[in-house]
């Protein structure tokens, strides 16, 4: 019988440094191909046995048939380990876990606004590339992405070389402070949202980033005419089992690992103000 707690062993076939503290790991099955299928926004539990397990969102698009990718920020013992390892190293992966962004349901046919800060782009990248690969199913796409500095922008090359070249894709990059060699926008993401005069008509917004960014982006999106039912975010909380049984990631009666991590903002309003 299949047991969701038992992971697959996968091979890290490529490690790409994104920023000084973010690396992207490409994982394939030992015999090649993907370990399992997933939908955009879903997570997987990565682990190095004996070190630790951590829930990481799958940043590659499900449309990618060959491998999965995970972007990991260095911030704990497992992530330190991952950052230090070489290609060819095996790790264990289990999943996919959680609710995905409703790409085939609520998002289909809509204009999409992606709002991301720092490593928060990782879960959205899966959606963005899914949208690119199913371009006809979606309308205008605006990507507002900010980071502390140019070096801290993840997927920079992909953004510049691929996303900006996708039809009706509008990428708005910003960094927190002026920096030599940067002639783009400077300022915080929430402010940038207001500056851009986005249209909420037939649109959905997908927000992911540091809590403070989400907190200040929400009113600005609401001001831009978005309704809470049009705004989605994805959360990160202490997850262990990934299947809503171990009991630690709940907010009220919802388990982030099972009922999330993707929530619509109106759903979050139903939950107690625990976090």
């Amino acid at each position, binding site marked *: *019988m*299949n*047991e*969701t*707690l*038992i*992971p*697959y*062993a996968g091979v890290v076939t490529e490690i790409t440094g994104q920023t000084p503290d973010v690396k992207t790991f490409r994982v394939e099955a030992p015999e090649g191909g993907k370990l399992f299928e997933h939908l955009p926004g879903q997570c997987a539990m990565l682990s*190095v*046995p*004996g*070190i*630790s*397990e951590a829930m990481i969102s799958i940043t590659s698009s499900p449309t990618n048939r060959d491998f999965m990718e995970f972007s990991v920020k260095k*911030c*704990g013992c497992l992530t330190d380990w991952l950052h230090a390892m*070489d290609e*060819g*190293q*095996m*790790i*264990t992966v289990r999943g996919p876990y959680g609710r995905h962004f409703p790409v085939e349901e609520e998002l289909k046919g809509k204009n999409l606004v992606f709002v991301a800060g720092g490593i928060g782009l990782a879960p959205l990248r899966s959606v963005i590339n899914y949208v690119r690969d199913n371009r006809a199913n979606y309308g205008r796409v605006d990507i507002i992405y900010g980071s502390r500095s140019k070096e801290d922008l993840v997927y920079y090359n992909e953004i510049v070389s691929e996303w900006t070249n996708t039809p009706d894709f509008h990428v708005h990059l910003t960094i927190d402070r002026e920096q030599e060699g940067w002639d783009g926008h400077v300022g915080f993401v929430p402010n940038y949202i207001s500056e851009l005069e986005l249209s909420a008509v037939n649109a959905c917004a997908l927000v992911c980033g540091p809590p403070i960014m989400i907190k200040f982006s929400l009113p600005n999106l609401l001001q831009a005419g978005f309704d809470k039912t049009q705004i989605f975010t994805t959360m990160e*909380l*202490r997850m*262990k*089992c990934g*299947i809503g*049984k*171990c*009991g*630690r*990631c*709940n907010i*009220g*009666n919802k388990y982030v690992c099972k009922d999330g991590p993707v929530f619509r903002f109106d759903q979050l309003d139903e*939950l*107690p*103000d*625990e*976090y």
Partner: protein
Amino acid sequence: MKKLQKTQLQPFFAALAANASLYLPVDNEVGKAEFKKWQDGVQMSTALNTLRSAKDFFFPQTENLMEFKMEGKRIDVIDTREECEDFVLFGVRACDAASFAILDRVYLVDPVDTYYKNRREHGTVVTLACGRPAETCFCGTFGIDATDPAGDVTAWELADGYALRANTEKGEALLASVAALLTDTDTAEVEAEQARVRAILARLPLSGLTTEGLGEGMTKEFFARPEWAALSEACLGCGTCTFVCPTCQCYDIRDFDTGHGIQRFRCWDSCMYSDFTKMAHGNPRTSQLERFRQRFMHKLVYFPDNNDGIFGCVGCGRCLARCPISMNIVKVMKALKKGGAEQ
């Protein structure tokens, strides 16, 4: 309905043990009942209930989930699951029997926990109706009938023997396997016994406790209540209530480096523990108030929310007896209701 003579009890146990491991409440070295494996000569405890609940049999305190062999860059995942052996749990009380249904609602819903399922499938539960309930008992609050417990087989202790009723196919099979020791009987004796015990249950100090005003949809109502502060004030943050509770099912997954491989095991965890929700970037529940609230909100609101109004408590009263500082779900329920009434 079948009947077993009291004198036939040990042969009955022997017959059950012949086919499967038989566990029943036995007094331990400090005079407290705990489930132990029956062997020739082992006497069943006369205590009302075991100190620890019966959940251990399906959800043990620790269990190995899998192993890993690591060599160079290679990792081998070793599935160590084995088919569980058949076992019989004899003498489970109504509250614990009801707790299995609650655990099922966690572990047998998709995705099924195969470790739990394996044990559940191989276990046969013989319940024993209560004859002498204690002041801490309040299973009636949650609609559980102590005189008619669930289980594969239900047993009643009578003056001269035990009445046995099979409730499931597993139960039928179990009774069939010991048919030689049993005689047919009618329900009269059982009904008389039930009437006697129901009269006692009605006199218990907690008999008036109801779930009125608690349950589904009460999150907003209860979450920010001022009562939590006083209720949680004395809480030590230990795991006693959780670990003696038949319905608590939170767990942790940890790795142990044996020196020649990694064992990944699961163990009970308690939401009362300060590190339960601790993560690399901080802890969403930093105070004991939040942790305390979580435990009771889960049993009284969140679980009913997600499970058709069924409460996550069976009123076994273990936490009432065991909490080092005598704080418990009954006090919480009463305080929340009282606070609600005052508002």
